C-alpha cells in the first residue's frame, strides 16, 4: 500500500486535504449557525451562509457501517481491506478504511480513532484503528 488514487481537490475542499498533510482532521463549520458539514461545500443548507471556518476533530468516532470488497480487484489494494463509514464524535461522517482490524474483528458500533497514513504520492489519508489498541 504505497499509493492510493489521488483525490481531485476543488476550491471547496482544499482545506481538508491540506489539513491532512499536517495530520489534522478538519471539519467545516458554518460561521452563521455553527453547524458542521462534511463533505465540504460552499453554502450552509441550514442558514445559507457562505462564510465558514474549520475545527479540528478529536479523531475519535464510531463505525456505523462497513464492507469488505472482494471483487473486482482494484489497483493499490492487493490485500484484504475494510471500507468503513465512521461517524466522528463531532457528528459528521466520512468513508475511510479500518487499519489493523481483521474482517472478523470489525463490528457495527466499534469505537475507532484516526491514524494518518502517508502514501508515496504526496497523499495523507485519515484511516481509523480500533480505539482499544491505539
Amino acid at each position, binding site marked *: 500500500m504505497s499509493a492510493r488514487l489521488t483525490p481531485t481537490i476543488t476550491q471547496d475542499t482544499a482545506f481538508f486535504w491540506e489539513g491532512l498533510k499536517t495530520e489534522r482532521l478538519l471539519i467545516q463549520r458554518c460561521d452563521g449557525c455553527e453547524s458542521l458539514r462534511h463533505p465540504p461545500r460552499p453554502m450552509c443548507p441550514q442558514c445559507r451562509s457562505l462564510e465558514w471556518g474549520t475545527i479540528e476533530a478529536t479523531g475519535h468516532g464510531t463505525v456505523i457501517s462497513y464492507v469488505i470488497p472482494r471483487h473486482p480487484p482494484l489497483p493499490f489494494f492487493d490485500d484484504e481491506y475494510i471500507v468503513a463509514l465512521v461517524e466522528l464524535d463531532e457528528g459528521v461522517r466520512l*468513508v475511510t478504511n479500518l487499519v489493523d482490524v481483521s474482517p472478523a474483528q470489525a463490528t457495527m458500533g466499534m469505537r475507532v480513532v484516526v491514524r494518518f497514513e502517508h502514501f508515496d504520492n504526496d497523499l495523507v489519508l485519515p484511516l481509523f484503528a480500533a480505539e482499544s489498541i491505539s
Partner: protein
Amino acid sequence: MSDRTLSGKSSIAGIGQTEFSKDSGRSELQLACEAVHAAIIDAGLTPSDVDGLVTFTMDTSEEMEVARNVGMSEISMFSRVHYGGGAAAGTVLQAAMAVATGVADAVVCYRAFNERSGNRFGNMTGRITTLPPWLSWYAPYGLMTPASWVALHAHRYMERYGVTNADFAPIAIVDRANAATNPGAWFYERPITFEEHQQSRWIIEPVLRLLDCCQESDGGVAVLITSTERARDLPNPPAVIAAASQGATFDSEMMTSYYRDDLTGLPEMGLVGNRLWAQSGLTPSDMSTAFLYDHFTPFVLMQLEELGFCGRGEAKDWATVERLSLTGDLPINTSGGLLGEAYIHGMNGITECVRQIRGTACNQLGDVVHALVTSGTGVPTSGLILSKL
C-alpha cells in the same frame, strides 16, 4: 384531483428493442437507432410523426444523430435525464409532460449501450485518470464500484432489521425463474436454487454475493409516448400512463448518500411512491405486477418498504418466493428483471410492463390492469404506473 394532473393524458403506444447480449458487435448509436425505429413501427407510425426525443444523460447517442439516422424531420422537444438508471421512468415522465401540454405529439424515449462489451460501470480502474470531485471521498479508500457503494448503505439496513444475505435470495430466485422461461433473457433456461445463491462468491462481504448483482448487457430499448386519445386508434392496446414521477430528497448523492440520519431506507423511492399513489388514486394492492429495479437485491427489499407494500423492516419476511412469483400476490420482474433478462438500465422493465398490459408477455399473467415500474435506486430516481385503458 386537480385538473392539472398528468394522469391518463398520455400512453405508451409503441415499444422496441434489440436483442440483449454480452457483445452486440455494433455501435451504441446503431443499437439506439434500431430500438427507436422498432418502437415507431410498433406504434404504427412513421419517423416523421415523431417530434420529441428523450434519453439518459449517460447515453452516448446524440438525439440529433438518432433523428438523422431514423429520418425524423422536425423535433420540437428533446431532453435528457440524469442519475444513471434513476432516469428510466423519468424519460417517460418528460415525454408524458410534453404530450400532455401539447409541446410534442409523439415522443420516443431510448437507451442503448454496450455496457458489457464496452464501457463497464464496475470497471473504474482502466479509465480513471482524474477522479470526479464526488468520487474523491471514496475511491482513495477502495470504494469504487456500484456494488460497493450500495453495500455500505445496505449493511446498515441489514444491521437495523436483522436481515442477512440469505434474505435476499428470494429476489434472485424469482428473477432467474422468470428469465428461465423468457427466450429473450440472457439467463433463459437457467434458474437458480437457494443453495446456489448462498454458494455464489462474495462480491462485497457480507452484503452482496455474485447472484445478488445484476448482469451487464449490450442492447437498446425504446418506447413511444403519444396522447391516449391518439393511442386508442393505433394498432396496439395503449399502456396508459396513470402516474409518473421523479424523486430526489435532501442530501442525495449518486449512490453514496451516507450522510443522512437514517440509512435504512431509500427516501427518493419513498417520494416517488407517494407521488405515484396520489397522482393515480391507486394503492399498492391495486398493482397486478411490479417491475422493481433490481441492480442489487437488497434495494428491492427496501423498495417494497418505501412503496408501502409492507412495513419498515418487514420485507425480509414479506418478500417470499411464493408471493413474488408469477402465481403470487405480487409477481415482480416477470421478464426476469435486470438480474435475469438484461441490464438495459431499467428501460426493459418499462417494455415488459407494457407487454403485460397488452397481454403479449412471454410470462403473461392473468388480467393485468395496473403495473408499477421503478428505476435505479440509491440515486435520484423515478417511477411509473401503467394501466389498461
